């Protein structure tokens, strides 16, 4: 586990608490930034039509399609921005944008 050394530095912090050069002293922390609420349209996955071809997974710009044991799971709506690319590339109409 990567140590997050940014604890206590936030939008209320005085300038003296900023890191030198604004360096982010952490890694893999984009998961903490919930972009799901930027969404105006929502993808809906229809597992009965899905053939698990996994075409949608590499196209997703926000890594919002979790994959486990070579199979995709339902959308990570904490991060999905609803761009619709997954629906556009799905060969089986298994993703619907609402």
């Amino acid at each position, binding site marked *: 586990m990567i140590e997050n050394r940014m604890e206590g530095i936030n939008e209320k912090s005085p*300038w003296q608490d900023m890191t030198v050069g604004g*360096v982010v002293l952490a890694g893999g922390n984009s998961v903490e930034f919930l972009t799901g609420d930027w969404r105006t349209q929502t993808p809906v996955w229809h597992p009965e039509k899905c053939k698990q071809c996994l075409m949608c997974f590499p196209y997703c710009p926000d890594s919002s399609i979790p994959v486990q044991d070579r199979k995709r799971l339902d959308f990570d709506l904490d991060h999905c921005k609803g761009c619709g690319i997954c629906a556009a590339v799905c060969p089986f109409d298994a993703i619907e944008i609402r």
Partner: protein
Amino acid sequence: MSKKDRLSGNEAVANAIRQIDPDVIAAFPITPSTEIPQYVSSFKAQGKLTSEFITVESEHSSISAAAGAEAAGVRAMTATSSAGFALMHEMLYVVSSDRLPVVMAVVNRALSGPININNDHSDSMGSRDAGWIQLYSENAQEAYDNMLMAHRIAEHPDVMLPLMVCQDGFITSHGVENIVLEDDETVKGFVGEYRPDEHLLDPERPIGVGPYGVSPYYMEMKRGQTEAMCRAEAVIEEVSREFGELTGREYGLFEEYRMDDAELGVLCIGSSAGTGKDAVDMLRARGVKAGLVKLRVFRPFPAAKLASALKGLKALAIMDKTDSFSAQGGPLGAEVRSALYQTGVIVPAVNYVYGLGGRDVRVETFEEIFAELEKIADGAPAEAFRYIGVRER
């Protein structure tokens, strides 16, 4: 053991780089700085330095490559002039706000137009607000010495800012002069190793460099950056003192020449200072109480100390080798007047714009200036600014 030699300013800087042996050198040629990477690449070919030498396709890329290398935790250097310097402008701000202590050799040359390859300070002065420390050099010796001190200042934990060492194009860069070189071991010992606390290539402690500074953070980051520049003055003095103890060559934020009892003073930057000192000696021999101040450190601007040095003058000439086109003179004129106002020092001052595009600056130029200062000291009105050494009807 130090060694007496005769070198051009470019050779002197290239030798400093060889002795510092930075991890990365990224450079793109432009007159009159071209010789620096040229000599350095020869040293590399001869096995006299271990630096990774990166040839790039532009100055925007050379400074970017240097920034990337610094972010990866190593020492990176580059060199440029004029239009190449201007092409770096955007990246200069990125490097300083990311607090990457890149060291750059600048060989000052006019920025077009009209197109011109000769010396003035319009290139580096044009980026004076980019957040870099700026050291200016009178001669090859000072260019060399400033370079040896550069990393100690830039990489100091209180500072962590990029630094440029400037010298006058052709006048010192291509002129051969006497110089004293320190031996390689002495330089290595003085400059030391660079081990930044944080860098991109530590898999145990990953970091992100150059994040988007959204409004809630941007001003706090800028405030931190300016704090570093405020702290740089003391660091420059401390490093210069240590350098003086090591080599016997003393440097401050500026040099005062025959200023103790001076009534008429000239303040200038760079190679003209030597010519000015010769003029001061001539005038002193005639009984004129003339003196000269040569500014070495323009960023950070040593306002309080400089105002104190100028206090007591009856007339002052502030000399700018570039025009700000503020209709008020040049950048040094503006900074010095601001410093005098802030400290309550009242000295009648004229801001002279001189030496543009390689216009030669002679002892006679200084004599003319001192003659005008004498009249001002006797009560004649001081013009806010004017050009000197220009043909007039």
